[in-house]
């Protein structure tokens, strides 16, 4: 037990158990559904995980700082549409330039969120609820409610969805999926080993302490919103490549799925704990559930009802179980006898940053 306590943190146990749950779910569904272990199943799950996974990375960073970003759906829609319209108008545009533009556009929109949350001190739930509406309205207005149609887009963009980089057995790893995976890896390493990454965890854990020891609080909060916007921009580009036709409805409701994936993936809504990998596992779990329910001929509408329940269970279990685990860990580290009050202070039930 001591060895375990020294090597593994409670949050990692949470993620490991999620991984086990995923394996369990796949096994159960595999036995219930014919033709489950086919490349088609993997493709469909990978499709949904790609977009939600990319946005989920940014959302993880935001939630780690005890905030939330509900405007990601509108940012994805805006970037998908406007970059699509841009490419439709200039078919010869450099692919890399298009991707960078999408990221930049998303970053700017995220920066607006960041300024309002970090410096104007408006709670993130308010800011992002407002920008969700504003960005969507902007999209409808500026686009004249037209559609970007796939016949106006160049071949390289439309074929991107079908490019296979690697084929392991029957599993096809596409270009878009690879983009998503690489983002996950980059950000997981970044948050674990970069100083800024550790500071983000610190801010979420205990904002007051973070301020007191002089961490660049405001700049970091601003940064996470910019990153969230930038990644949403990238996801918008992926959406454009996948669907081709983009209407002003693109991305509507995406934010709810992303928050669900992040919370189910073990990122604590109070901030300060969870990881990018966990959020991605959450996205995988949700993708599996969605695809499998569809195959089982269970009404697709159960998905949302289950999603709500899952979020609730995830938050509730995190609040109760993780708290107990942390107390246990804390006691073991300081070798406090059971029955004694733990020296670790209870975390506050905060909703906003101070």
């Amino acid at each position: 037990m001591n060895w375990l306590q020294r090597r593994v943190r409670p949050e990692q146990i949470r993620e490991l158990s999620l991984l086990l749950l995923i394996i369990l779910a796949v096994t159960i569904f595999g036995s219930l559904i014919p033709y489950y272990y086919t490349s088609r199943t993997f493709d469909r799950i990978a499709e949904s995980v790609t977009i939600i996974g990319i946005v989920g990375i940014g959302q993880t960073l935001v939630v780690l700082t005890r905030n939330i970003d509900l405007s990601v759906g509108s940012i994805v829609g805006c970037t998908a549409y406007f970059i699509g319209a841009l490419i439709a108008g200039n078919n010869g545009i450099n692919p890399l330039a298009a991707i960078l533009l999408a990221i930049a556009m998303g970053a700017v929109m995220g920066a607006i969120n960041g300024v309002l949350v970090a410096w104007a001190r408006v709670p993130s739930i308010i800011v992002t609820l407002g920008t969700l509406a504003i960005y969507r309205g902007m999209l409808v207005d500026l686009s004249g409610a037209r559609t970007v149609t796939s016949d106006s887009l160049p071949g390289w963009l439309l074929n991107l969805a079908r490019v296979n980089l690697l084929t392991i057995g029957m599993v096809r790893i596409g270009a878009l999926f690879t983009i998503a995976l690489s983002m996950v890896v980059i950000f997981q390493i970044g948050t674990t080993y970069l100083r800024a990454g550790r500071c983000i965890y610190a801010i979420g854990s205990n904002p007051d302490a973070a301020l007191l020891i002089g961490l660049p609080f405001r700049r970091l909060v601003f940064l996470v919103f910019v990153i969230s916007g930038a990644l949403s921009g990238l996801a918008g580009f992926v959406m454009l490549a996948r669907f081709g036709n983009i209407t002003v409805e693109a991305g509507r409701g995406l934010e709810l799925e992303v928050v669900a994936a992040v919370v189910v993936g073990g990122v604590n809504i109070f901030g300060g704990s969870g990881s990018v990998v966990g959020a991605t596992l959450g996205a995988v779990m949700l993708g599996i559930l969605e695809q499998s329910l569809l195959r089982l001929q269970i009404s697709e509408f159960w998905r949302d009802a289950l999603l709500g329940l899952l979020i609730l269970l995830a938050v509730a279990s995190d609040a109760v179980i993780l708290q107990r685990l942390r107390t246990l860990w804390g006691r073991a580290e300081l070798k406090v006898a059971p029955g004694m009050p733990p020296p670790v202070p209870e975390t506050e039930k905060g909703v906003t940053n101070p």
Partner: protein
Amino acid sequence: MIALGRLKSWEGLLLAILVVVVAMNVMRSPYYLGIDNVVNLFQLSIEKIIVALTMTMIIVSGEIDLSVASIMGLAAVLLGCLFKAGIPMPAAILIALLSGLAAGLFNGFWVAQAGLPSLAVTLAGLIGYRGLARVFIQDHSIGGFPAWFDTIGQQRTVGPLTISIMIFFILFVIVAVTLHGSGLGRLVYAIGNNTQAARYAGVRVKLIKLCLFGASGLVAALAGILYGARLGSVRGDIATGFELDIITMVLLGGVSIFGGSGNIIGVGLSILVILNLRNGMGLANITGDTQTSVVGALLILSVLVPNLMHTLKTKWKERKT
């Protein structure tokens, strides 16, 4: 009693904005102040403003309820499905109302008893209750309600006013009396100001919060049923996105998102501002999402401006000393 000095600040500002908006609208359309249009003005958003009243109490107590629009949808859908299954309308209405109450109490349990943040719980509710509604009704719409039911939402029964409008005014008075004239109201403010202190002072915080969420769910269900009456039919996605307007109405009315302050007169004024704004935009042929983005901007401003004013005031004081 609201001190005259307070009137100079937030409520006064709202009144000024209201006058400006109404003036602009009157200039644009001569029919604006006619009784027809005024009733229309209320009717087009009547369900939202009804829910805004209970939302006020929730936000004053320091919590938030994002799931109200989904509870509206769920209640409306249940009503439709029960009606279609042959259940007599009055019974169906009762069951739909109870479902809203149950949903609200469910929210309240997790927030008050289990101590989870209301943001997360009601976000889960927003997704979950909507999903539940879709499970019941799938992609269809159910209509063909008995004529007397449609009358409630659509017809002018008491003079030029519809029953929905009457319900709004009655509820307004109830909430006003509760918040400002009763002991319960004072407790709600106390909880919003400092939950810990209230708990130590012996206030039954858990029970009150549970009741507030229950009331929020019940009123949301009522609003959903009225919405179904007004449209003459229900679908799985009705009232989607309503929470934005509802929360804006409350926050614009001077209620602090952190809880503990604000009053119902301010909310009443902000409701009028938003209704006139939406109606004016509609008459100017600005539709749907553009209108919503204006409301979104208002939402941000309603918290941003007080923040800025507060910072400026403190900086001004610092300069003086």
